């Protein structure tokens, strides 16, 4: 193919005018479809609620004195409710990884193809000051993609340990499914892991926001606004 980037972008825009708008030399692309954005913010808000309530469950810092307020009762109820919202969001995202557009697919998170491996290397060099150029791409760069894979594993462990802790009081089917884990890791250590992953999640959030700001500053593609609107403005050769 000897088409110029501009011709390619225009062809893409003709094919799918709702998702791609080509202007001179640049394309404005709807990288993040609506479900991706909704899931992103659902995960974020449920993690906030889960962390605030979870931290309270772990370290009840509010002293209610002699006037009982059912604080722990509410914290645990909110935690369980938010937990199921969170689980639903994670399940939905996994389904979307097999049905969404190419920037939300599962292969964005596992750098196995040659192109993705090279992109990850470019990203590594950029972050370690070996190069000045951020890794090119429209969706997640390959390095960021693998970070999200790690985060997904963390979240799955969090869901599993959370359900196992829930099974202690619920018994029933949940206990039969998750009970084996206590033979591998005793109950206090399950709590420990569940608690630790909360802190690791906030470590990730710091990295995540920092990298978003950094990349948007470098590339000015509208990366930060893209998680609200879905659109990114990219050099046409990125598509």
């Amino acid at each position: 193919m000897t088409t110029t980037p501009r011709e390619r972008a225009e062809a893409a825009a003709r094919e799918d005018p709702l998702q791609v708008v080509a202007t001179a030399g640049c394309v404005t692309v709807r990288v993040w479809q609506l479900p991706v954005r909704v899931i992103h913010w659902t995960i974020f808000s449920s993690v906030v609620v889960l962390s605030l309530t979870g931290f309270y469950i772990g370290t009840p810092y509010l002293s209610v004195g002699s006037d009982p307020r059912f604080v722990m009762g509410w914290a645990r109820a909110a935690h369980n409710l938010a937990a199921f919202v969170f689980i639903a969001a994670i399940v939905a995202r996994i389904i979307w990884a097999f049905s969404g557009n190419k920037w939300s697919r599962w292969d964005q998170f596992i750098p196995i193809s040659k192109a993705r491996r090279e992109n990850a290397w470019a990203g590594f060099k950029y972050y370690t000051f070996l190069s000045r150029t951020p890794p090119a791409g429209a969706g997640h760069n390959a390095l960021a993609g693998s970070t999200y894979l790690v985060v997904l594993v963390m979240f799955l462990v969090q869901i599993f340990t959370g359900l196992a802790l829930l099974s202690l009081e619920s018994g029933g089917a949940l206990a039969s499914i998750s009970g084996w884990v206590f033979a591998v890791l005793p109950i206090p250590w399950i709590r420990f892991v569940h608690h630790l992953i909360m802190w690791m999640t906030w470590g990730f959030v710091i990295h995540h926001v920092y990298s978003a700001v950094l990349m948007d500053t470098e590339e000015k593609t509208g990366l930060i606004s893209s998680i609200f609107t879905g659109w990114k403005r990219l050099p046409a050769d990125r598509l």
Partner: protein
Amino acid sequence: MLETSTRQDSIVESLLARGVTRRRFLEFCAATTAILALPVTYETRIAEALETADKPTLVWLEFQDCAGNSESFLRARDPGVADIVLDILSVDYHETIMAAAGHQAEAAREEAIARGGHIVVVEGSVPTAANGVYCTIGGKTAQQILAETVKGAAAVINTGTCSAYGGIPAAAPNPTGAVGVPDLVSGVPVVNLPGCPMNVDNLTATIVHFLTFGALPATDEVGRPLFAYGERIHDHCERRAHFDAGQFALEWGDEGHRKGWCLYKMGCKGPSTFHNCPSQRWNGGTSWPIGAGHGCVGCSEPFFWDTMTPIYGRLPAPPGFGVTTSLERIGAGIVGLTALGFGAHGVAKAIQRKRVGDAVQTPVEIDRAALRKGRDEEGGER
């Protein structure tokens, strides 16, 4: 009854002989039905079974133990019931309470084994390191005695966490290579009644279950009968309302502690422990640890000495940071260090940009350039 004996009377005969009234006997059957969480209709079935059953022979082995379970055994609910408990069983061998000693005692054990069909109760863990020399009785190692005694036995009942899982002798670094009985015994039904010590009510109920149904009660994954270990302490605790309300004792003897508030922040392991202490209680139903103002230490959970510690901390200490470092400190460290690290990265990137210049042509610049070019070439299209 504590002399060595080879009598095989029926239970009821021996009860009558000791002056236990039928009314008292039926009360015992009712209480045991309740402990076993069986419907009341089972009361008669249990009474019938105990009336017709022969006294089972019981051999009580003590290995690496503190005799706490024997203490518990001898403090059965109230004197009337204690009589019943001891009378249901023909205790043919029990080092601590038997009259016989030395060769005579060992002979009693051997006789019981020879008859077969006996119930073996084990207290204490079995050392396996150095060929088991850490616990020998009459020249035999605990391991040998156990292997001999379970031969032909009808059931093995482990009393206390040590015989069930190795318990305190097996706590890290476990110098004697202590293990629980289930690790060494096969081919005989085994049930675990862990606790430090076990509650004698649960032992009695287990034996009554065995005599009534001819089988040991249903157990969980770690071999504990569900009737006694199926519910979590935290879910039946009398302080639970204070937990839900957010009322916690923060120091021993503070206002919350004096008012009987929840001991969660004092390291109570009730949320991680399964046992019927809150309902069955101890010392004839007088009290239990949390009722007495001390948090649960999780003594009926496998390896509690290693996994439920620190006793006065809610979560295990993070490995490699020393016991005084809390998980919250580690967490704050994780968040603080990432913030610091990426902050430094941002500063370095800003410096790199100053020195090397912009990284890429941004879309804004490309657009501007292309528009200019487009106007030149195509007469301002778009």
